């Protein structure tokens, strides 16, 4: 071998050693990288790996059950099945939807909603296809699963109201969460999650909701669930017991027959609401899964306004029922007393307007008890003028009128008790004697809700205790805290005497409604309030009988009653919209309700 050949091999040897070093460096780089990925950054990648494979889904907790005062279930949850669609799990969402429609027909409404959801929601959020699936439908879907990629059956709970229409205005209803409410609630994105939309369901929503559970699922890259890793079922919402007695509620509801109106029954000693109905009503079960347009429009366009809770949102002139307040204000102010007699000649001039008594012939001379019994208008025009509106205002507010009572129902109204200052502020006009006279018989500006009227009556007949109406049973401690109003017992007894006479005295305005159950009798006060202005011409020509007017124009009929008179326990306020006559229409309904309360002996 020559030297050139040797040189060549030597060079090759050197270069090869260099190459080997290069290879070693390359391997060292790989080892360093391995260390970096598998030791230094391992924790980060472990988290990412878990994020990949673990899909956490929220479980909707069962909503709390609502019981009536006797432990009867009035709102519960029933199992139901719904079909969901997860967009990211299907390659062709329209094809899946078509395939689904071939198995389970969808209405146009449903399809519109689904297409909207598909557009608006993120691709991994399940979209509701259809609720309330029957076993048969579930089986059909499962059977066709290969043609329905992305479709899942979800076992859900739907809210059931066993008494349907009976409790619509008390309990309200639940419904899918709206965008506005979504912000903070992690459950909001879970299909089937419902929140209270109205009534006590809304007010007590926080208690009833419970705590959401989670289920951790292992999913593969295509989103298919491989197995369940961990389940935390969550906590059912708290049960709530309310003070309403379903039997009395039903009796009150039935007592109205076809009339529309509202009734509120209170335990006068505690303020517990024993019944609260508003007629006509609706079926809250319709709302649970989203009400259809047809039903919604029917409810919305009904002239008798079934969606309005007349018991708390209906504001009406109290009419003659307000005379109780006026009488107490006057007695307390000392402008009249037990012996004060006022002569009713059927009419009187106030300013330059002539005010009539409902009895044009006049009642003659009356004391306060007789004035209440016969509901004499002249007596109360005069009394109101003597005591002045501001004292009436103060008394009304003490008794629970003029401001909302906050029982937790939607759109609870405060009514209106006028005062001089109010009129000045509102109309920039001075208070007139005519205003006072009108207020004295519960007309003019005065407005109350049935709930307020029942509260007022309860506060009077319980001896002047400021009970607060409530759906939640007050504790002993709560009851001890009830304030005694600054009204003398003597005056209260006088007023009660008057209300006793209304029903039980000869010639009392509500004589037809009286009853006597084991010695328990009813006291109360009728009221009839004008819906339209009666023109001067009508006044002179003789008034058309109210019953002959179209329904919408007839007078509202009031009755507020309590029983037993000697030791009052229950108070009721009944309004019959356009019922014409307090004594003829409202009093018998109130009577039926109170009789039922006595019969049930609700404690």
């Amino acid at each position, binding site marked *: 071998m020559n030297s050139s050949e040797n040189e*060549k091999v030597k060079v090759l040897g050197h270069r090869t050693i260099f*190459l080997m070093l290069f290879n070693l460096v390359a391997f060292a780089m790989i080892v360093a990288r391995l260390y970096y990925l598998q030791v230094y950054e391992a924790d980060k990648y472990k988290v990412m790996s878990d994020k990949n494979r673990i899909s956490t889904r929220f479980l909707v907790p069962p909503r709390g059950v609502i019981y009536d005062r006797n432990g009867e279930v009035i709102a519960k949850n029933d199992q139901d099945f719904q079909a969901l669609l997860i967009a990211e799990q299907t390659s062709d969402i329209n094809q899946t939807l078509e395939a689904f429609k071939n198995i389970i027909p969808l209405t146009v409404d449903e399809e519109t909603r689904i297409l909207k959801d598909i557009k608006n929601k993120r691709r991994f959020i399940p979209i509701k296809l259809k609720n309330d699936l029957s076993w048969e439908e579930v089986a059909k879907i499962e059977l066709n699963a290969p043609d329905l990629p992305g479709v899942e059956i979800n076992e859900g709970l739907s809210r059931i109201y066993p008494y349907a229409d009976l409790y619509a205005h008390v309990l309200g209803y639940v419904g899918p969460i709206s965008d506005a409410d979504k912000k903070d609630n992690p459950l909001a994105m879970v299909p089937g999650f419902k929140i209270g939309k109205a009534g006590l369901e809304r007010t007590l929503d926080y208690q009833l909701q419970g705590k959401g559970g989670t289920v951790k699922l292992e999913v593969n890259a295509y989103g298919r669930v491989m197995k369940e890793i961990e389940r935390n079922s969550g906590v059912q919402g708290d049960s709530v017991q309310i003070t309403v007695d379903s039997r009395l509620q039903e009796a009150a509801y039935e007592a109205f027959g076809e009339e529309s109106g509202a009734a509120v029954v209170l335990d006068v000693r505690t303020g517990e609401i024993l019944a609260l109905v508003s007629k006509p009503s609706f079926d809250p079960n319709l709302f649970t899964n989203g009400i259809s347009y047809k039903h919604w429009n029917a409810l919305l366009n009904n002239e008798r306004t079934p969606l309005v809770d007349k018991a708390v949102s209906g504001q009406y002139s109290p009419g003659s029922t307000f005379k109780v307040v006026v009488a107490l204000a006057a007695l307390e102010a000392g402008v009249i007393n037990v012996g004060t007699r006022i002569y009713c000649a059927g009419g009187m001039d106030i300013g330059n307007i002539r005010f009539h008594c409902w009895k044009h012939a006049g009642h003659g001379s009356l004391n306060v008890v007789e004035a209440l019994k016969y509901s004499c208008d002249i007596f109360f025009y005069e009394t109101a003028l003597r005591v002045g509106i501001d004292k009436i205002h103060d008394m009304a507010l003490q008794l629970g009128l003029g401001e909302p009572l906050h029982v937790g129902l939607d759109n609870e109204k405060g009514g209106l008790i006028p005062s001089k200052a109010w009129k000045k502020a509102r109309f920039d006009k001075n208070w007139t004697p005519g205003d006072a006279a009108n207020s004295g018989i519960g007309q003019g500006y005065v407005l109350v809700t049935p709930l307020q009227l029942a509260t007022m009556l309860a506060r009077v007949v319980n001896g002047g205790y400021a009970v607060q109406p409530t759906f939640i049973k007050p504790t002993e401690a709560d009851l001890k805290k009830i304030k005694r109003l600054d009204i003398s017992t003597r005056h209260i007894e006088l007023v009660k005497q008057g209300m006793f006479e209304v029903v039980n005295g000869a010639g009392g305005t509500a004589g037809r409604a009286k009853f006597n159950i084991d010695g328990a009798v009813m006291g109360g006060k009728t009221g009839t309030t004008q819906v339209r202005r009666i023109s001067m011409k009508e006044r002179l020509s003789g008034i058309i009988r109210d019953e002959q007017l179209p329904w919408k124009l007839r007078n509202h009929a009031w009755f507020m009653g309590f029983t037993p008179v000697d030791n009052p326990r229950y108070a009721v306020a009944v309004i019959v919209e356009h019922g014409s006559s307090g004594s003829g229409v409202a009093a018998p309904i109130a009577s039926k309700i109170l009789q039922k309360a006595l019969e049930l002996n609700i404690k």
Partner: protein
Amino acid sequence: MEYIGYGNNGQSLKDKILGISFTYILLIVILAGIGTMTLYSAANGSWEPWAGKHLMRFGFALTLMIFMALIDARQYYKWAYVFYLVSMMLLIAVEVFGHIGMGAQRWINFGLFKVQPSELMKIGIVLFLARYFNAMTIQGIRTFRGLIIPALLTLFPVAFIAMEPDLGTALMVLITATVMVFVAGVQWWKFALVGTIGGGSLPIIWNFLHEYQKNRVLTFLDPERDPLGTGYHIIQSKIAFGSGGVFGKGFLHGTQTHLNFLPEKHTDFIFTMFSEEFGMLGSLTVLALNLLVIALGYLFAFRTHNYFAKLTIIGLNTNYFLYVFINISMVMGLLPVVGVPLPLISYGGTVMFSIMASFGIILCMSINKSKMSFDDNR
């Protein structure tokens, strides 16, 4: 059979068989075993569809390797240029038929088996350069003129392979050839010059790349750029590595792979899958085995006394090193994803046979310890 066992400087078949490095074969068998095991896991614990076939292929390839090891080493020298030419012609044929036929096509179907000319070229370029430099003096190697032919005959097939398009293989052939030129003793400054020119021409090359190749490079530089597309592979692969940690998730328990987050787990990304299940300890074991295979290769190169044999071993060894390095680097995010499998472990017949054939040649060269000259042409 004239050259098998006989005429190789008087070595008998028995001598030759005993001359084969059994350590080398053992390492290869262990690596193929790891591959089979990983493919078994990749199929969620099943011999179907990969592991069984992989093992069977390895069996055939092992036979091929031993056959090639026992061939008279002079035959490789003798047929080196012819082999290169045939490979080149097949490459051209693939390019031509591929375009007439079904778009991008990398193989030719011979009925019984398919051949990827680019794989043949990996061996062909080594044999060609080894013989070419073997015949040259060191002075000749250090002239410009001496480099013209190797440069042209390297760039020609590289260009064809790149056009297939198979950027990974093209780069491997190019780098293998460059390494051989380097080892043969070409001056450093020439590499610096070519490097500068090459760096300067990158923007021009960039324009010739396919969109998907550009994407791969861009995504390599920033995987987050396209987390659901090309970057997805790299991100998911890194997650698999990282979450495997030091000890791994256990055989058959890699979540990234078994839940299909990791694509190509049985081919290009098999090392990721292995590493997720066996952690850093497993990965280091595979690296060590490969390092030993490569080190043994260099040992063979030093031990043989023949220049052609030395250069052939270094070329083929470099080819193997590139496979391992490029594959592992790309799945760990050190290099762009260029589609280079991990030999012996990744599923796929072509690479299995081509790499085993090159092992066979390495062994053949290593058996030949004599100073025998191949210079029968001179």
